[in-house]
């Protein structure tokens, strides 16, 4: 009888022990963010092919004075993806003038010249570039060239199209 009582007491104690065996463990992760200033993108110069003639292709190089140019201002040293929406044709009153062979060049140094810039191919896929400097605000200039290909019977007129540059930090 005494043994039974002792075992019962032990069981009660053990059940109590089991009920209090909850154990805590902890783990950490970090929450991180990098704050940049807002970036501005300005279409600064029109890509201008000037006069072109039926059947004669005409190219504008990124280093030409009539290349297209975008001016960017953003966070120094920040990485940026450049993505373009490019027309396949310039249009005039329903007529198309094919445009292609796009060329690009970006320059993060403190001038707005294409001299010494870094070449890339503008497209709908992101091109990775970077602002210069180490802190504060920095500038970048992006130049765009292309080739138009008038047909032999190209209708005369003024042809226009839109080139859109989207820039995003990454």
């Amino acid at each position: 009888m005494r043994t039974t009582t002792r075992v019962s007491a032990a069981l009660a104690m053990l059940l109590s022990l089991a009920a209090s065996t909850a154990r805590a463990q902890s783990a950490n992760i970090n929450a991180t963010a990098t704050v940049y200033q807002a970036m501005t993108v300005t279409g600064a110069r029109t890509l201008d092919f000037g006069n072109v003639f039926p059947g004669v292709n005409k190219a504008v190089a990124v280093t030409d004075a009539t290349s297209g140019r975008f001016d960017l201002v953003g966070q120094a040293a920040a990485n940026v993806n450049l993505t373009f929406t490019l027309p396949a044709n310039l249009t005039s009153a329903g007529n198309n003038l094919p445009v292609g062979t796009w060329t690009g060049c970006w320059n993060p140094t403190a001038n707005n010249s294409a001299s010494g810039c870094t070449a890339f191919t503008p497209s709908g896929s992101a091109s990775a570039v970077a602002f210069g400097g180490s802190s504060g605000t920095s500038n970048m200039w992006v130049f765009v060239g292309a080739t138009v290909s008038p047909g032999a019977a190209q209708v005369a007129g003024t042809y226009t199209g839109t080139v859109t540059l989207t820039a995003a930090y990454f």
Partner: protein
Amino acid sequence: MRRCFALLVLALIAVTRPLTGQSQVTGIRNLAFGVVIRGVQTSVAPADPIKSGRFYVRHQLNRQVRVAFTLPTQLPRVGGGGNLPITFRATDAIAQGTAGNSVPVTFNPNNPITFTLTTSADFYLNLGGRVSPAAGQATGNYQGTVTLTCTFF
């Protein structure tokens, strides 16, 4: 008789005490907002496979785990010079068991919650959130700590 009693006690202890080595909680991915712009609130969804924070928790099937986050309200700027406000909403945490039939549970990371592990002995906890940089927020890197405390029953 005493010897038998002692053996019985040891056996009961072995049966009633959970196996310590089977329970664990591990931080496996930071909650990473990446680049945020001054003056622009930026969110990370708990289901984001890259930016959401993530913990792994393992215990025992049919047992309970109480999970409690310790969440920051500000992320200090690395090197000093300011704090970045951070908040967590009622749907910013998801628990997902590892079994094929486990159903994800969305819950409020601001409050503790207890789960009973009915389909798998382990699960992942994903954490989202949002930061609200001021228009004049100092640029730079900000970092804080998220702690998950699990109580295993």
